[in-house]
C-alpha cells in the first residue's frame, strides 16, 4: 500500500487484496469529501469455458464446468445437470435428487466455513489472516478446519472426491452410496451441526460497521425447503419466474474495466444474490434449529447489513449440517442410481444456489447430444454492481478513517460477498484516490 498527498488528490493503493477467491481490483475516487467514483474490477482473463463446451457431449458439461471453481464445483455440476435433464425431459427420483442435495450441503459447509472462519473472521478479530489468528486462537482455527473437513467428507463420500467430484452425472450419480456409507457420516455431522451453532454465537458477537442498504434480493425458492438445488427464481421486488425465463428479466453487459459481465434485473437494476438474499426470501424454510439460532443471535427476518453476512453464513452452515443429517436419516439407496439421459435437440436451463448465490446455466444441444451453445452466469458477476454500490455507501460514511483503515474497510466490504472472482471470469488491487 502506498499513499500520496497533494492539494486536491489523496491516493491509497493496495496491490493485492487477499483472502478472496481469484484476482481482481478496486478503485475509489474521492473529490471534495464526496465519493466520486467506485470501480470494482475483475482482471482475470475471460474464461473460455463457454467456448470450450461447444462441440462436447452434453454429458461432459458437469465434469468440465466443475473445473471452473475448486471451492464450489457442486454448484456447476448441479446447474449443468439440471439444464441437461431439462432438455432430456428427466425428472429425478426423490432419493436421486436428495443425494444431489446432500453433496451440495457438503459444499455449503466447506465453502462457508472456509470463508467465514478462515478468511472473513480475521477481519473482525483484528488479525491479518488465519495464520495470525491460529497463533492466538488455535481452538477456533482447529474447529473451523474440522468443520470444513466434515463438509469435504460429505463431498468425498457422495461425490467420489472432495474437489471436482467425479461421481455425479446427468440424471443422478454413477454409484449410489450405501446406507452404511452415509450413516458413517452421522457422528461428525452431528458434531459439525453443534460446532456451527457455537460458531454462529461467536460471530454474532463481532462488531459490525453500522451500514445497511435496501437491496433487491434474488434467490431460488422452492416450497417446503430452503432452496438449494432446485426452485424458481424469485426476488424481493416480486419476481417469480421459471429458471428458463431468466434471460427475459436479467441482462448481462460488458463493462470495460472488468472481464466479468455485470448483471442487472429489468426494472430494478443491480441486485444481490447469496446468503443475505436466501435468508431474506426463504428464512421461514430453515430447519427449526437454524431458525432458533438465527433468532437467538438477533438476525430478524431480513438482514440488510452486508457485514453481518458472516452470521448468515454461519446459520446456513448450521442448516446445511442439519439438512444433511435429515437426508441421511431417511436415505434409501436409489436403484438405479441415475436416470439414463437420451439426448434430444433443444435448450435447457439450470440454476442452483452456489454458496455465493445463484449459478445459472443454459445449454443448447442437438439430437446427438452435442453442445451447440452454452452460457454460464456465476454468482459473483451478478453481485459485482452491488459490491460497487456497497463500496460507495461504505466509503461515504467512512471518510474520517485513515487511509489504512479505509482500505481495510473496503477490503472487508468486498469480502462480505465471498467473491469467487475466478469463477466470474485472481488478487485484488485496491486503489483509493481522494481529495
Amino acid at each position, binding site marked *: 500500500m502506498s499513499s500520496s498527498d497533494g492539494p486536491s488528490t489523496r491516493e491509497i493503493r493496495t496491490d493485492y487484496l487477499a*483472502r*478472496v*477467491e*481469484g*484476482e481482481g481490483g478496486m478503485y475509489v475516487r474521492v473529490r471534495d469529501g464526496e465519493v466520486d467514483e467506485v470501480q470494482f474490477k475483475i482482471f*482475470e*482473463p475471460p*474464461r*473460455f*469455458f463457454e467456448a*470450450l463446451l461447444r462441440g462436447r457431449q452434453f454429458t461432459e458439461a458437469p465434469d468440465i464446468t466443475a*473445473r471452473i471453481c*475448486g*471451492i464450489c464445483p457442486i454448484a456447476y455440476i448441479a446447474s449443468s445437470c439440471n439444464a441437461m435433464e431439462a432438455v432430456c425431459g428427466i425428472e429425478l427420483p426423490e432419493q436421486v435428487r436428495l443425494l444431489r442435495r446432500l453433496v451440495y450441503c457438503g459444499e455449503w459447509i466447506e465453502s462457508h466455513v*472456509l*470463508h467465514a472462519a*478462515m*478468511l472473513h473472521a480475521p477481519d473482525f478479530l483484528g488479525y491479518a*489472516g*488465519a*495464520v495470525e489468528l*491460529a*497463533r492466538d486462537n*488455535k481452538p477456533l*482455527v*482447529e474447529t473451523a*478446519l474440522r468443520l*470444513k*473437513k466434515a463438509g*469435504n467428507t460429505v463431498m468425498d463420500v457422495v461425490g467420489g*472426491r*472432495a*474437489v*471436482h467430484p467425479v461421481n455425479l452425472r446427468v440424471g443422478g450419480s454413477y454409484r449410489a452410496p450405501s446406507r452404511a456409507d452415509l450413516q458413517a457420516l452421522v457422528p461428525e455431522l452431528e458434531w459439525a451441526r453443534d460446532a456451527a451453532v457455537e460458531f454462529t454465537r461467536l460471530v454474532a458477537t463481532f462488531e459490525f460497521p453500522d451500514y445497511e442498504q435496501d437491496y433487491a434480493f434474488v434467490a431460488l425458492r422452492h416450497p417446503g425447503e430452503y432452496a438449494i438445488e432446485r426452485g424458481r427464481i424469485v426476488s424481493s421486488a416480486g419476481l417469480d419466474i421459471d429458471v428458463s425465463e431468466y434471460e427475459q428479466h436479467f441482462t448481462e453487459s460488458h463493462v470495460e474495466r472488468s472481464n466479468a459481465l455485470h448483471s442487472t434485473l429489468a426494472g430494478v437494476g443491480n441486485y444481490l444474490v447469496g446468503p443475505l438474499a436466501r435468508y431474506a426470501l426463504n428464512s421461514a424454510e430453515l430447519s427449526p434449529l437454524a431458525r432458533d439460532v438465527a433468532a437467538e443471535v438477533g438476525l430478524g427476518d431480513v438482514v440488510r447489513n452486508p457485514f453481518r453476512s458472516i452470521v448468515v453464513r454461519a446459520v446456513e452452515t448450521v442448516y446445511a449440517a442439519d439438512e444433511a443429517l435429515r437426508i441421511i436419516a431417511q436415505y434409501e439407496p436409489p436403484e438405479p442410481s441415475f436416470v439414463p439421459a437420451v439426448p434430444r435437440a433443444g435448450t435447457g436451463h439450470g440454476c442452483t444456489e452456489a454458496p455465493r448465490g445463484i449459478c445459472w446455466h443454459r445449454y443448447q444441444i442437438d439430437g446427438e447430444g452435442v453442445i451447440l451453445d452454452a452460457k454460464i452466469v456465476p454468482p459473483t458477476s451478478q453481485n459485482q454492481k452491488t459490491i460497487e454500490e456497497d463500496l460507495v455507501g461504505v466509503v461515504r460514511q467512512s471518510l474520517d478513517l485513515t487511509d489504512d483503515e479505509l482500505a481495510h474497510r473496503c477490503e472487508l466490504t468486498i469480502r462480505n460477498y465471498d467473491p469467487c472472482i*475466478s469463477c466470474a471470469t*485472481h*488478487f485484488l488491487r485496491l486503489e483509493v484516490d481522494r481529495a
Partner: protein
Amino acid sequence: MRAAACLGSRYRGDDAVGPLVADRLRAAGATVLDCDDEPTRLLDAWAGLDLVVIVDAISSGAPAGTVHRFDPGGGALPRDLGLASTHAFSVPEALELGRALGRAPRRVLVVGVEGAAFGMGDPVTPAVDAALDGVAAEVLATLNEEG
C-alpha cells in the same frame, strides 16, 4: 516419511507442471500428497512428515523452463513467485498455518519450473515440457535419499 505435493491445474497451460510431475512420480512409486486445488487439505496430509517437496509452476520473469529450487528452512515460503497462486488459501499460508497448529512437515523444499503461459486451455510451453523429466528425476532422488 517423505512425500511430494504437486500443485496446479492441468487446464491452465504451464500451471500443469505440478500434475505432470505428479504423474511421473506416482508412476515411479513415490508418495504424492493429494491436495487438489485446496491447500488446507495439506494440513492433514503432511503433518508429521520428515520432508515434503512442493512442486509447482513459478512465474518470476525468468526464461520458461528455468528450474527454481528453494529451501526455506524454518522461514516462510516466498509468496511472490506464483506459489501464492489463485486460491483463497495459498500453500505458503497453509505451511504457516500448519506450523502455528503443529501440523506441518519437519522440512519443506520447493522445486518450481518457470512457466510462460497460464491461460485457460493453453498448451504446455515446449521449454517447460522439456524440463519435466529432469525435475521428476530430481524430486524422486530427493525423496529416496537416506535420512
